[in-house]
């Protein structure tokens, strides 16, 4: 094999003389290859990338024997020289295309800025080069788009612009730090395909940082797994996924939800719990000085479904399709809803005020972000007890505490959890607290709004296990809102696919996932990255996803 383009030897990073966040890791990236660094959140993968470019905050301490770019030790380079390397020889793409583009500059100017910095061509050539880059990243109508501001572009297009900026310096190595994590699954597939094509065109090396093993298995040539600052396993992609050596890697692979699991379970019919007919959520668009309503944004546009007792309906769709709005609308958390909602024989759409408040106990919600869904200034015990206090004010404080203790135990939290604050817990533990809070008022239905998408795979599997066991124990039904089709297979009995405010396909999980009827569902399923164990080209991945 030829010489590595980037060689990192014995790199350690620590903050404020604390523990090592990155602990003595070594790896090489070779020209033209895709090297993937995989790990759960907090394992130090982004820190590793940033420390190579020396972009860490001043309180970071970087130690290494060498970080060499084509034999040139970057540690010996001054800040001035490093500025000539960043962007020119190493390009970088960040996770969130929204916050990494300057909102008050046109995308053309932002790309130009980089070209000017490194090459300084004449004005004519500059413009040509920008257009060429935009064409390269497959932005439609680049002549018009060049003067657009970031907010005028969609998330996928913004990420394409980011890639164009990274490519503007014609780097030998492109670092992509979770490039698709904040994108929808269909967009994700497009961006990954683009990265692959660009790599083939330019012959640059791609250093991919990701938490998604399935995605990595489709894209990478070599894989390294990081755990708590250490690289625990490195290997060629095929070998790596076929015979994972390290127990941690095996655990990660086992935790991946798999599409096949849905075919195994088939449960009995039960009476319906929640019946929704022609449910709508319209947001008025107001114009003029009198704020007349001129039109409506149809966030949810006439959906109907039934959830059976003790069963789970998964609501699947891409971001912006109205699935979260539907969930919150059902709970009466947002104004402007219409349609018939019947929960256990009670028409929820007709009652209001105190009667509605009392009925709220029957329906609870678990949110996506375990960090913003709990008041940071309340003890966990008080958070869990809040619902009991509000809906059953007669319960004595001793009984309430006993109930909180039981609930926390049920969701698998330590004894002393009630006396601690939310920020002392990890993401998965916080999500357990949220589940305990929802369970506190004995609901019949829990709306789970992407409860696992902010969590690592291994934690995600645990939470899903917990939800399933609670369902068996208490007979509670779930409306499971998610964008992740693999999770759907794990937990759902029925699936409703949402697109632009409407349900486009609705049926049992086995039917929808294995024999989708609608084109949109097929497209969605095709885009899900599936763990690749055979050596297949990237383009075949769609077929495999449909099983």
């Amino acid at each position, binding site marked *: 094999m030829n010489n590595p383009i980037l060689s990192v030897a014995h790199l350690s990073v620590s903050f404020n003389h604390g523990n090592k966040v990155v602990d003595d890791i070594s790896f090489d990236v070779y020209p033209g290859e895709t090297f993937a660094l995989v790990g759960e959140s907090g394992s130090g993968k982004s820190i590793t990338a940033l420390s190579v470019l020396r972009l860490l905050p001043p309180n970071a301490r970087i130690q290494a024997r060498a970080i060499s770019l084509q034999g040139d030790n970057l540690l010996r380079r001054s800040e001035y020289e490093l500025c000539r390397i960043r962007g020119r020889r190493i390009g970088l793409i960040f996770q969130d295309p929204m916050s990494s583009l300057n909102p008050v500059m046109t995308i053309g100017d932002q790309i130009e800025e980089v070209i000017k910095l490194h090459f300084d061509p004449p004005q004519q050539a500059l413009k040509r080069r920008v257009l060429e880059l935009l064409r390269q990243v497959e932005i439609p109508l680049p002549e018009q788009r060049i003067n657009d501001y970031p907010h005028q572009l969609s998330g996928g297009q913004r990420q394409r612009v980011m890639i164009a900026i990274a490519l503007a310096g014609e780097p030998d190595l492109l670092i992509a730090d979770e490039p698709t994590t904040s994108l929808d699954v269909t967009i994700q597939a497009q961006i990954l395909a683009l990265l692959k094509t660009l790599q083939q065109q330019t012959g640059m090396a791609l250093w991919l940082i990701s938490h998604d093993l399935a995605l990595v298995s489709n894209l990478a040539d070599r894989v390294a797994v990081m755990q708590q600052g250490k690289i625990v396993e490195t290997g060629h992609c095929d070998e790596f996924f076929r015979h994972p050596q390290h127990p941690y890697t095996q655990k990660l692979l086992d935790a991946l939800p798999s599409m096949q699991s849905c075919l195994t379970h088939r449960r009995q019919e039960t009476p319906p719990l929640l019946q929704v007919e022609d449910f709508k959520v319209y947001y008025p668009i107001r114009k003029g000085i009198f704020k007349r309503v001129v039109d409506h944004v149809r966030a949810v546009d006439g959906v109907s479904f039934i959830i059976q007792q003790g069963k789970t309906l998964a609501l699947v769709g891409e971001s912006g399709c109205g699935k979260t709005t539907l969930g919150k609308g059902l709970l009466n958390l947002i104004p402007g809803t219409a349609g018939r909602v019947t929960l256990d024989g009670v028409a929820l759409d007709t009652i209001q005020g105190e009667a509605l408040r009392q009925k*709220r106990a029957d329906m609870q919600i678990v949110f996506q972000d375990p960090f913003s*869904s709990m*008041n940071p*200034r309340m003890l966990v015990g008080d958070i869990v007890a809040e*619902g009991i206090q*509000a809906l059953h004010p007669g319960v004595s404080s001793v009984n309430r505490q006993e109930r909180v203790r039981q609930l926390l135990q049920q969701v698998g939290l330590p004894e002393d959890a009630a006396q601690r604050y939310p920020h002392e817990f990890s993401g998965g533990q916080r999500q357990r607290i949220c589940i305990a809070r929802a369970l506190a008022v004995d609901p019949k239905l829990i709306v789970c709004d992407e409860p696992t998408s902010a969590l690592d795979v291994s934690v995600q599997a645990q939470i899903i296990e917990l939800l399933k066991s609670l369902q068996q124990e208490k007979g509670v039904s779930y409306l499971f809102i998610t964008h992740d089709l693999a999770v759907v297979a794990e937990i759902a009995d029925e699936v409703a696919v949402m697109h632009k405010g409407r349900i486009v396909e609705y049926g049992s999980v086995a039917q929808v996932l294995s024999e989708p009827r609608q084109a949109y569902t097929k497209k969605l399923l095709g885009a899900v990255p599936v763990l690749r164990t055979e050596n297949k080209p990237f383009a075949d991945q769609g077929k495999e996803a449909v099983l």
Partner: protein
Amino acid sequence: MIILWTDALIFLLIAVMLLLGFYLRGKEYIKRPMQQIARSKTGMMSLTVLIFFVVVGLLDSIHFKPPEGHGNEIISALDYWATPLREHSEKTYSAPFAVYLYSKEMMTLPDGTEQWGYPRLQFGGAHLADPETEHLPDILEKAFYGWLQGAGLVVFFMVLLVSLLREPHKRFIVSPTAKAVWAVVFLVVSVNYMLVYLSAYYHVFGTDKVGEDVFYQAIKSIRTGLVIGTLTTLVMLPMALVFGIMAGFFRGWVDDVIQYVYTTLNSIPSVLLIAASILMVQVYMAAHEEKFTSVIVRADMRLLFLCLILGVTSWTGLCRLLRAETLKLREMEYVQAAQAMGVRRRVILLRHILPNVMHIVLISVVLDFSSLVLAEAVLSYINIGVDPTTYSWGNMINGARLEMAREPVVWWSLTASFIFMFALVLAANLFADTVRDAFDPRRGAYE
């Protein structure tokens, strides 16, 4: 003992703060930032200076009728303690540490001849037989003795403390922060003791136009500054809190009305409002003379109204901040979760919104304090501030500004008020910085 309106409010404020401290004492989310403040050297040093100012202000807030034969104007504990200072009035201006008056006048010498010259001061340096030779050595000697006594006092208390404290509490003395605090205490107490000691013999900051000791004026002004800083906050805080949170939480017409009110209020020049309300108070007092028999009661009423009107004009800024923050918080998922659990609105407001905006309140209150102290000085300068008989830094500056053109310059009133105001505002600002850092989670309060 006589309790003036502002006294009552000050004591009420202190009682409320003590109660609040008692209520929050075990709360984790208050304890951690407090500990961070306690670890900060700058914070604790500025707090020490602030406490010194507050103690002086409190002493000045205990009013009573003087004992028989000492006049019948109401005095405060500070006045009583500083009686010599208060009564050592000269004829007119005299420079700091001067022995002679600022202006020449006709004197009758012991031998009966008349002379046009600078007369000796009645009190400043009156103990000197021959000012020409004894003056400077005497000042240095007295300053040294005064400083030594002050320093001795601090050292004595420190030794007492060290011998009394048991092992776990020793950190109150030996930790780096404690050392810094003790250094400040040492400096403040010894220097002030020295000044007080000296002012028994000299006018350390000179005298003003009517011969009153400027050091005494500056000390008396501390209370005025503190009253304006704190009572205004007391007026402004409930309005800003209630309106800001309501506007942000309920949206709709409530928000429209509140926004309309504060935009309107903001667009009226506040100087105009203040002038109008001060005028109103004066008219009221003129109409009800029987209720305001004493000069000090009148002055106090005017001070109170100044605080009120400053409060009414200054709540809009904080209200706007709170509205924005509440708008953000009401969309937080924990608020929605509480709603889904059937928690009542007022409980949501009290339990989920209020505690999460408290850091903003705390920060802006401490920052506003210093700007209000400065505002008082500006308002007195254009004669719509406190009563001319009230001692305040603003009045001192106002009085001194006309004398700036004299030759030699009468600089001491200005300097004294500048030094005191600077010390108070700087300490308040430094403390506010520390408080802000400690309560802002993004600045790593939980590290």
